[in-house]
């Protein structure tokens, strides 16, 4: 059968699942020519190497190992010969639930577990069918193990020797998947496939791209968000050796001056010598202290109603002595992935090629195509490895590829690598929004809350963004991301009222790892801790009592945490205290305990423990690493210099001096991870460990200082 015919049949039979994409691909990270279907995902090379395509970005979270392991398990592939590659943009690689090629919401495993299992099982079935036909034996008498099919008379054939014949077979519609007892890789501590390359310097990230004729571009970005270039004097800048061109480009908000040079340093020197006057007319000059005044005032009145359960007037009937009124402040936060932002684009007139550490290939490809006046399919789009993301590469407006394309448009035929310096990143906006919360909570005679009125104030990510998810994430004028962690609380509070204000502010915002839970969980978990304290109950026992009957995703980790940490929590040295918090994110439950003391007027965290319920633990080693990393990421909210602040429209921090991330000494030397044994469908683990740690730490601090901490970052104790 002709290959093209075969591919068309596959396409028709399985709804496009196995469409080959290799003919569109031509780059350094090009998948090897497919030699075996389902060739968009699995290639068996003649030497036995099995190349598995990963349909989403790897930026630390480990799907580059987990998804191939899932497929290889069902395929009975020899894991020691499996290689993973990041797939380019193509319809076949769209997330089966989102309908876009992207990673987000810690959804890689929940959304693609079944997909990769079926791909592996179908591949295995086709290999078996080929061997069975060769040996003229029934397929059900053949077995597979480590990339070898074995027949009833002990015949054996390597996958590599069967692959080209197997490629001509029809793809089965339905296949039997393994029972959990048959798993060899799923559920085991599979080490990362990308470790060695990331330890010897050979792993190429987007910023490391080196193409023939490539130029580096930096942007002189507006000093106030949305400003436009009024006048430009580039004479001095053009005198820098290596500078190729300097021109203005439109940004998503405002405009910027692009400097294109042979290397980074010449581009940087030239940029430093530009004399740019900016047009700031009509622009709001956002100012943190003014915003706090506005936000706190807004928080005194109800906003758009998000949740209304029971009677919201109940709270007014509760005597003041049985009420807690609490106000919280959360600043803008920067994501600061260690690899500075970048994107590379070459425009050839009737088509283009892009190399992007992209969190959403589908949307970034469209953004580039729009800038260049092309159709998305005219943009060959390669996925580059990314040095972290944490939300900063979320494509709410795809502004990074947009900027790279706008420069490339002026430099036809030249690959343009746009690089953001660290200063560009820290000052460039797209932060976790500021939030103010005001909560009134009424407490019954039994110490349990009877009513809560909760007002949340902060910019919406989604309203007016035009993003693909906007229709799903905005309900009755409330951005569901801003209220998650409060609105969906598993605590059973009978009279429960949540409302939100979404002021418009001239500061671009983006989701930050665990999104709305970053502030909502802090509010809920510090208040519940306060309630437990008032009730003179153990903080875990109190939470277990307050949880709704069906909150099993939190109950199990809390109980596990209680068992595994009891010894150290109840035997802390003098001057130490334990703190507890829990959080459920997209059906993953997390409970956290910390051991904290105070050193130099800062919290010193000696130990943290996380208990997590992710359903089936696909890779316990990755889950452990994500929990450890998530705890440390969550701690970055508490750093003394964690905040991004604005003064009259200008960001006050520049780099890792005025803005600080946790260093090793700021983090616990021990982070124990306890995984709840479960047979439930797998859920995510990248974001869920983040929200609980910060409230756990301040809950411990309360036990040391008697103070409740409701303003972040923690400036003084």
């Amino acid at each position, binding site marked *: 059968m002709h290959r093209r015919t075969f591919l068309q049949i596959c396409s028709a039979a399985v709804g496009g699942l196995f469409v080959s994409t290799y003919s569109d691909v031509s780059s350094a990270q090009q998948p090897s020519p497919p030699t075996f279907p389902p060739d968009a995902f699995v290639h068996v090379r003649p030497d036995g190497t099995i190349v598995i395509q990963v349909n989403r970005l790897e*930026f*630390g*979270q*480990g799907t580059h190992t987990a998804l191939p392991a899932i497929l290889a398990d069902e395929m009975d592939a020899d894991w020691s010969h499996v290689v993973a590659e990041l797939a380019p943009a193509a319809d076949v690689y769209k997330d089966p639930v989102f309908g876009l090629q992207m990673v987000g919401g810690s959804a890689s495993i929940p959304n693609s577990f079944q997909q990769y299992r079926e791909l592996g099982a179908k591949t295995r079935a086709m290999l078996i069918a080929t061997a069975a036909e060769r040996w003229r034996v029934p397929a059900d008498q053949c077995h597979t193990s480590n990339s070898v099919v074995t027949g009833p008379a002990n015949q054996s054939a390597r996958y590599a020797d069967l692959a080209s014949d197997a490629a001509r077979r029809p793809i089965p519609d339905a296949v039997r998947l393994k029972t959990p007892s048959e798993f060899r890789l799923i559920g085991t501590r599979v*080490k*990362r496939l*990308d*470790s*060695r*390359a*990331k*330890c*010897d*310097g*050979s*792993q*190429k*990230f987007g*910023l*490391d791209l*080196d193409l023939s004729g490539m130029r*580096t571009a930096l942007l002189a970005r507006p000093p106030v968000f949305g400003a436009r270039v009024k006048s430009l004097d580039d004479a001095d800048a053009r005198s820098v*050796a290596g500078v190729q061109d300097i021109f203005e480009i439109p940004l998503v908000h405002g405009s910027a001056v692009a400097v294109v040079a042979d*290397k*980074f*340093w010449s581009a940087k*020197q030239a940029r430093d010598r530009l004399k740019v006057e900016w047009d700031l007319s009509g622009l709001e000059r956002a100012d943190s202290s003014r915003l706090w005044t506005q936000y706190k005032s807004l928080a005194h009145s109800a906003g758009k109603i998000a949740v209304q359960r029971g009677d919201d007037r109940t709270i007014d009937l509760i005597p003041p002595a049985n009420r807690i009124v609490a106000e919280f402040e959360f600043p803008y936060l920067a994501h*600061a*992935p*260690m*690899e*500075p932002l970048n994107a590379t684009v070459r425009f050839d007139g009737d088509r283009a090629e892009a190399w992007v550490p992209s969190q959403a290939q589908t949307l970034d490809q469209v953004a580039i195509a729009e800038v260049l006046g092309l159709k998305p399919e005219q943009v060959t789009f390669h996925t580059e*490895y*990314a*040095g*972290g993301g*944490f939300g900063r590469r979320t494509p709410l407006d795809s502004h990074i590829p947009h900027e790279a394309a706008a420069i490339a448009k002026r430099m036809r035929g030249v690959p343009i690598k746009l690089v953001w*310096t*660290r*200063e560009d990143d820290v000052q460039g906006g797209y932060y976790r929004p500021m939030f103010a919360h005001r909560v009134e909570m009424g407490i019954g005679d039994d110490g349990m809350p009877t009513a809560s009125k909760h007002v949340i104030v902060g910019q919406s990510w989604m309203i007016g963004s035009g993003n693909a998810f906007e229709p799903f994430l905005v309900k009755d004028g409330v951005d569901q991301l801003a209220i998650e962690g409060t609105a969906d609380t598993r605590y059973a509070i009978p009279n429960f009222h949540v409302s939100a204000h979404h002021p418009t502010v001239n500061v671009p915002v983006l989701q930050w790892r665990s999104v709305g839970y970053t502030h909502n969980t802090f509010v809920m978990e510090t208040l519940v801790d306060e309630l437990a304290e008032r009730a003179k109950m153990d903080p875990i026992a109190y939470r277990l009592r307050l949880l709704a009957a069906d909150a099993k995703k939190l109950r199990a980790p809390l109980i596990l945490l209680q068992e595994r940490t009891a010894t150290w929590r109840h035997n802390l040295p003098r001057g130490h205290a334990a703190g507890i918090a829990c959080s459920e994110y997209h059906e993953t439950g997390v409970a956290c305990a910390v051991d904290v003391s105070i050193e130099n007027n800062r919290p010193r965290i000696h130990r943290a423990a996380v208990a997590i319920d992710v359903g089936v633990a696909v890779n316990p*080693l990755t889950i452990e*690493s*994500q929990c*450890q*990393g998530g*705890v*440390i*990421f969550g701690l970055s909210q508490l750093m003394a210099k964690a905040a991004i602040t604005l003064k009259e429209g200008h960001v006050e921090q520049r*780099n*890792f*001096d005025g803005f600080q*991330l*946790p*260093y*090793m*000494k700021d*983090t*616990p*030397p*021990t982070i124990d991870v306890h995984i709840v044994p479960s047979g439930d469908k797998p859920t995510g683990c990248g974001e869920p460990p983040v929200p609980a740690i910060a409230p756990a730490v301040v809950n411990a601090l309360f036990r040391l200082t008697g103070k409740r901490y409701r303003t972040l970052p923690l400036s003084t104790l």
Partner: protein
Amino acid sequence: MPAYTLNVNGRQTEVMADASTPLLWVLRDDLKLTGTKYGCGIAACGACTVLVGGVASRSCVLPISLLGERSVVTIEAMATDPVGRRVQDAWVATDVVQCGYCQSGQIMTAVALLKAVPKPADAQIEQSMGGNICRCGTYVRIRQAIRNAAQPG
């Protein structure tokens, strides 16, 4: 533009560069040694750490004109360095990396530590690694990998 003769990973090489060019960008853009990473440009994150004259140094703030005769050793040479190889193997065995972007700098810093102090105490590890940021938060495993690499035999 002046010419500079460098000794990088044991090889003599000549580059033409502006005197102010940080060693980092000579390594990355001229010598194509992209294992050394740009993170902040102000010596605050450690992603650009290399050995200069045997000392762990921030290549992002070292102008090429001030390098002088000192040798430069980068992550690309670690696989053939006995301590470097041991550290890399410990990193892989401990499954340290996540995004991996900072790890060249982490490993170079750890190698410098272990060359100076073969069996560092935990406090020495924390002090020596104290200027290297890992945004993924792999610090627990970095500590463990250094302890493992320091074990004899």
